[in-house]
């Protein structure tokens, strides 16, 4: 597989106060494919993707060193506004977190409205398109005024995906987006992730190796804050180079 590079981390280290959560991560994330981040709990998967849109620094006393490049530009350079980065690199969280005071419509429109967009047909169209992309439109098109929290967990997670898509990001980060969902809702989201990769660069954290194998093109295996192995998903699962990777994917620990 030969694709261009969308993001890249170079010698990336991350800390929470004195505790180092990421060590010297150098990893290239290719455009318009799904990259899965796998590894045992606490190995730094969440920390890693949160450095990719500068959410990491919102934790008190959290800091990083090294570089994160987006289209070749270091997103941690002094002149870069984190707000702009977060518009280009969207995020879907582990637990569905629609805004509780907003309707389904307003949830999807939230990113644009918070950035100053006005009501109108243009906004209506973006909301519809985003919900369609998130394969939720048919299920909620008659209930757009209902609270965002009134739908099922799986639907809420797709609503959160629609919300992230509405601001037209280039990269979408997903932190274990299915871990709070049942198998049917999970299957829907996995199908959706495959579709998203046609237009977006997707990075998904998962502790479920079958899921990584099903949805991703590339996989990175993290262990104790280090990148142990990275490669095409098939190759990594069928023919791991590192002994640690092999132990992990065969379920010897984790």
């Amino acid at each position, binding site marked *: 597989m030969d694709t261009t590079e969308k993001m890249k981390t170079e010698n990336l280290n991350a800390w929470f106060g004195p505790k180092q959560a990421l060590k010297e991560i150098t990893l290239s994330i290719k455009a318009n494919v799904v990259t899965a981040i796998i590894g045992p709990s606490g190995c730094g998967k969440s920390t890693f993707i949160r450095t990719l*849109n500068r*959410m990491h620094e*919102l934790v*008190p006393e959290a800091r990083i060193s090294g570089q994160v490049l987006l289209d070749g530009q270091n997103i941690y350079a002094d002149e870069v506004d984190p*707000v*702009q*980065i*977060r*518009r280009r690199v*969207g*995020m879907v*969280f582990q*637990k569905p*977190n*629609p*805004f*509780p*005071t907003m*309707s389904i419509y307003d949830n999807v429109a*939230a*990113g644009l*409205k*918070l*950035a100053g967009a006005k009501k109108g047909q243009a906004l209506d169209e973006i909301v519809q398109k985003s919900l369609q992309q998130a394969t939720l439109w048919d299920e909620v098109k008659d209930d757009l005024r209902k*609270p965002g*929290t009134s739908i099922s967990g799986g639907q809420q997670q797709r609503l*959160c995906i629609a*919300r*992230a898509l509405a*601001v037209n990001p280039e990269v979408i980060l997903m932190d274990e987006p299915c871990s709070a969902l049942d198998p049917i809702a999970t299957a829907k989201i996995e199908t959706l992730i495959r579709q998203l990769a046609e237009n977006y660069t997707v990075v998904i954290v998962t502790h479920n190796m079958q899921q990584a194998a099903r949805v991703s093109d590339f996989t990175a295996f993290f262990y104790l804050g280090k990148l142990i192995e990275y490669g095409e998903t098939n190759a990594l699962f069928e023919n791991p180079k590192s002994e640690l990777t092999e132990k992990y994917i065969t379920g010897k620990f984790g």
Partner: protein
Amino acid sequence: MLNSYSIRKFKNKAAYVLCLCCVVIAVVPLASILFEVIARGASQLSIQFLTSNGLEGGIGPAIQGTLILIGLTSLIGVPIGILSGVYLAEFGDNKYASTMRTINDILTEFPSIVVGITAFSIIVIGVTGSFSPLAGAIALSFMMIPIVARTTEEALKLVLNSIREASLALGAHQWKTILRVVLPAARQGLVTGTLLAVARIAGETAPILLTILGNSYFFQGFNQPMDALPLRIFLNSRQPSPEVQAQAWGAALVLILIVLALNIVVRIATKGRFKR
């Protein structure tokens, strides 16, 4: 036979009865106050009593004054209180904030007569040179701000962090996140806090005793003495005439009704579209 099960059953029962007794002890005085106020105050209520001025035996100026005080105090106290609460909850992870929090807590417990005498000596004597609604409202905001700040902080802390993160991850600025996402999510708490503070200041007597003085006439300007219900209750109840004393009961009932009505109206007006 007394086995351990029946002992436990007995203890359960005893604890239940004890709790019930305490509830009764707590409720009886409250209910009797309410009963007394209604019994003695209701007979006073008439259009003439509610609308005419003090010389004609009415409490019109006191009702008007209390409403003005509530409005003016809220105008000063609610924005400052909410903004302080926002600071404490959203940026309060430093030693300045914890100092502020301590001062705030002390202010909440501050004897109101001390607030009154301070407002008297600084504002009434020093600044305006007269008893005035403005001086009263400033004194009362001193009591209102800490309550609103504290309840705002508590309400904002209940808002899930994942909601803040969701907004920030969409590329929203922090102040927009607070304004459009966090504060709306905490709305019920903010309303409750504000109402609590309003109920508290509406009935305060000591701070206004020394700042607005009282007046038999309707509102005469922001730099003139004004009347208010708690003041009227206090002043009239000390008069020897039974008729004047009865007016104090009428005023007490009206004060309770105003606080109650305000509660209901504000709750309906600020009810969110969605339940939480």
